[in-house]
Structure formats: structure tokens, C-alpha cells
């Protein structure tokens, strides 16, 4: 019998699945993504259809999470809103991550003035809290969910650029990259084929860590009126509507609020778990 070979990925997975909490968080997120994808089929009502006979109604068998001021079904709005909130979270982090990976590899690989310029830019961007940077970008581009995506991408970028620059510096010195270089592999191929794959594990872990933050920031911007505009069922925007009915219709806060909290918490727990599993791998 041959002994089983332990690949780095297998090792990583083995360590990750031992922790129950991050695994549970992953399952919660999978269910949420699935619900958002299947929204047209599983949402019990049209999220935009008003029902003026059932305004601000509390939870009932018909409307599990109650209705809002227009009589719209809140559960359906939360399910449809997942499409907005989750995709804003993912798209903005992927955009920022992509830009950060490109800048990070280039600055780590070439060094010199390009490196200095990129790192100074990152220093400046990181010196400001994300939400302020996002508000500044929205101030320039105007309110709206698309601009929120760009805004979040801008403040996610430096995190990835620094991370990838660091691993590029390390990978540049590895034997296989040196070997590839010595047989005359072009610089672009070196970066793309030999260095990029090595940086990806860390990037993936940080994506999962950042998506929660991004959803939170997007929801905050929508809450203060700079993000998703009505009638979009974005979760932060739903809470912004709920603010006017405090004490009159509490369910307007409980359900969207619990959804945001659960989502962000799940991303943070999952990200922590992934990072711990990866860190151990780096240490050994």
C-alpha cells in the first residue's frame, strides 16, 4: 500500500475542518448565497409589490418577518436584498483584490521607483479609515450602489497590494523562480505563471476576511443615504427606513438587523478560521 501524500491544500483543509465554528460559518454563508441566487423561486412575495391593507404588520404566518410601511414582505426583501448586499461585498473585494494583486506583484517584482510609488500610495490610503475614504469617493462620484463598489474597492486595494508584495519578494528568491529566470523565461511569464499562484492562498484568505468588512461598509453607506437608493432592498437601506418607525414597528429592525449581523459575523468567523489554518501551515 502506498502512503497517502499530503498536499499543502489537503493539509490546510484538514486543519480547517477540525474547527467546528468556522465550518458552521461557511455553511451559513453557503445557505445565504444560495438563497440570494434562488431568490426568484424561494421568496414568497414580490419584494417591490406594495400591499396597502397590510402596512407595518408584525410577523404572521403569511408574512414571516412582517411587512414594511408599504406593506412589502420583509422576508422577501431580505432574500432579494441578499443579492445586492452579497454581490456588493464580493464584487468590491474582488475588484480591490485584483488591483492590489497586480500592483503588489509588479512592485515586489520590479522594485525601485515603481515599488516606492505603490507603497507610498498604499501608506496614504491605509492612513485613512475605510469609511471616510469611501465617503470621499462617493462625494466625488455621487451617491449610488455602483459608486459604493468602487469606493470599497479603493480602500481594499492597499491591503492586498502590501500582502502580495510581501509574498512576491519571498517567492522571487525561491529556487524555482531563479531557475526559470536563468533559462530565460520572460518577466511577464515569471510573474504570471511562477509567482502569482504562490501568492493566491493568502489572497483568498484575505478576501474572505474583507468581504464581511465590505458588506458592513456598504450597509453603513446605504444607511446614511449614500449607497443603495430606494426601492432597492439592500439591508442597510432597509434599516435606514426602519429608523422612522422605532417603537411603532420593531420587526423592521430585528429581521434585517439580524441578517446583517449574522452575515458579517459568519464572514469574520470563517476568515479567522481560514487565517489560523493558513498561519499554521506557514509556520511549519
Amino acid at each position: 500500500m502506498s502512503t497517502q501524500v499530503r498536499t499543502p491544500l489537503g493539509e490546510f483543509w484538514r486543519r480547517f475542518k477540525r474547527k467546528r465554528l468556522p465550518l458552521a460559518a461557511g455553511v451559513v454563508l453557503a445557505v445565504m448565497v444560495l438563497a440570494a441566487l434562488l431568490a426568484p423561486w424561494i421568496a414568497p412575495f414580490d419584494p417591490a409589490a406594495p400591499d396597502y391593507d397590510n402596512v407595518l404588520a408584525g410577523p404572521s404566518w403569511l408574512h414571516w418577518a412582517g411587512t414594511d410601511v408599504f406593506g412589502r414582505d420583509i422576508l422577501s426583501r431580505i432574500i432579494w436584498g441578499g443579492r445586492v448586499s452579497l454581490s456588493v461585498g464580493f464584487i468590491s473585494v474582488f475588484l480591490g483584490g485584483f488591483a492590489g494583486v497586480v500592483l503588489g506583484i509588479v512592485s515586489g517584482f520590479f522594485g525601485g521607483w515603481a515599488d516606492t510609488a505603490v507603497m507610498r500610495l498604499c501608506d496614504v490610503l491605509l492612513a485613512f479609515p475605510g469609511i471616510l475614504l469611501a465617503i470621499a469617493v462617493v462625494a466625488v462620484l455621487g451617491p449610488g450602489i455602483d459608486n459604493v463598489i468602487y469606493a470599497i474597492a479603493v480602500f481594499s486595494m492597499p491591503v492586498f497590494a502590501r500582502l502580495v508584495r510581501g509574498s512576491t519578494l519571498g517567492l522571487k528568491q525561491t529556487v524555482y523562480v531563479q531557475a526559470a529566470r536563468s533559462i530565460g523565461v520572460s518577466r511577464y511569464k515569471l510573474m504570471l505563471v511562477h509567482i502569482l499562484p504562490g501568492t493566491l492562498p493568502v489572497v483568498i484568505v484575505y478576501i474572505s476576511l474583507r468581504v464581511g468588512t465590505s458588506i458592513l461598509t456598504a450597509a453603513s453607506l446605504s444607511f446614511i443615504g449614500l449607497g443603495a437608493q430606494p426601492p432597492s432592498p439592500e439591508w442597510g437601506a432597509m434599516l435606514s427606513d426602519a429608523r422612522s418607525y422605532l417603537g411603532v414597528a420593531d420587526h423592521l429592525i430585528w429581521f434585517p438587523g439580524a441578517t446583517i449581523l449574522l452575515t458579517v459575523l459568519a464572514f469574520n468567523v470563517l476568515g479567522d478560521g481560514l487565517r489560523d489554518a493558513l498561519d499554521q501551515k506557514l509556520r511549519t
Partner: protein
Amino acid sequence: MLAFIIRRLIGAVPVLVAVSIFVFAFVHLLPGDPARLVAGPEASAADVAAMRTEMGLDGSLVSQYLHYAGQTLRGELGRSSKTRQPVASEIGVRFMPTLWLTVTAMVWAVALGLVMGVVSGVRRGQWVDRLSMVLAISGISTPGFLLGLLLIQMFSVWLGWLPTGGYGTWQHFVLPSFTLGTAVAAVLARFVRSSYIEVAGEDYVRTARAKGVPEQTVVWTHTLRNALIPVITATGLQFGFLLGGAIVVETVFAWPGLGRLLIDSVSYRDYPVIQAEIMLFSTEFLLINLIVDLLYAAVNPEIRLK
């Protein structure tokens, strides 16, 4: 130390210049006449013409920028296109409420974060540690606006103990500063814990224990003192982030501060106020970062000499 301070002060200048170029540029990057944008939608043609002269728009871009930078340095920030009041006085009125909000939030957040972090670190793996880490990650994951709404629901609507918003007495401070400080307390608790655990694994701590130093001295003198050095930086950075978080919290609690002013001016496209606020916030962050660096250098000579 003086040389270090001077070096850091000079280092902050290019960043401020970069920010001011961004702030200057963004009015020019927007489609439309910058003078019209700054003067506001209700300004008359004569007002716009006057604004054009005031902004020095007839000169080259470089001279326009120098003109803008000179005015900003003299504190001439123009007039709000919404209220027609000088921007400097608009901001001046709102400065103290925001400052007090962030300071009160910071005080309790640092106190709680330190206690939670140290207790977790010392009692690593025990129920106290688990509980405070669950609280911490929940605190990090709760958006400020959600926490604010929940607190209003509980303490204002149900119990009727505290006002739902506004500014004035100490009761007005309780909910907003608790809301604002929560995330910071949570981040600090996690940071202090991991810093403590890291230091507790150092050789000199083991040596101290081995040679029979009382456990209390090991915890307080050997471990805690060293573990808290990086906490200074983390705390300072969090202070900057509080100013950002204040924007959301001020909206929830109708707090008459800088954050609300910024949101209102973005919605209204009140460019003179937006420009001034971004400039002010940036300066504050740089200043805080600078103070943090100096404090850090004061406790850690290694940094100073690099």
C-alpha cells in the same frame, strides 16, 4: 528625540499636500463649471462670476492650486453653498460635539478592551476567555448603525431611560458613545489578548518563572508591560477610525457633529464644506498617527534610532 519629531513632521507634509491636491482636483474633475459647483445650484450668474474670480479660475491649474492652498492655509474656506455661512464657522460649531463623542467613546473602549484582553490572555482557553472573545467578534461584526438602533429600541423606547438622540446633557452621551466605542473595545480586546499571549511565550518570561519570580510580578512586570507597547499603536489607529465611525453614529443619534455635516453636504453637494471637511479629517488622522508614532518612539528607543 527632537530630531525624530522634526523628521516625522516633515514626513507628514507630502501626504497633506497629496490630500490637498486630491481635494482641489475633485471639484475640477467633476463635470460642469467648478465655480458653479462651488457657488451652489441657487447662485445667480453674478455670484458664479464672483466665485470664479475668488477661486482664481482664470489662471493656470497650478496657479489655481496655489491660490486654493494659500486660502486654505489662512483658514479661508469659503462659504457653504447651502447655508451661505462661512465654512469655518459651520465646522467650528460642530467640532466640539464630535470631539467629545470620540473622547468619551475612546475612554471606555480602551478601559474595557484592555481589561478584556488581559483577562483573556491570562486565562487563555478558560470560559472567561471564550466569553470575551465571542463578545469581541460579535462587537466587530455589529454595524454601528444597527447597534445604535437596537440600543435606542431598548433604552429609549422600551425602558424610557435615555433620549433617542440629540445633544446637551450627559444622558445624551450614553448611547452614542457606547455605540461608537463597541467596535474599538472589541478590536482592542483581541489585539491585547494576542499581544499578551505572544509575550507570555518569550524566553525571558519563562526564565522569570523558572527563577521563582512571584506569578503576579511575572504577569504585571514581565509580560503586561511589554505586551502593551504595540497596544499604543493599535489604540492610536483606532482613535482615527473612531472619527470615521462617528459619521455613522452621528446619523443614528441626530448628533450635531462633523460627521453629520459631512453626510448632509455630500447629499446636498455642498462642495466648499465637503472640501474643508475632507481636509480637516485628513489633517486629524495625520496628526493622530504622528502622536502615536511619537508615543511609540518614547517607549521603544529602537524605533527612534532607526
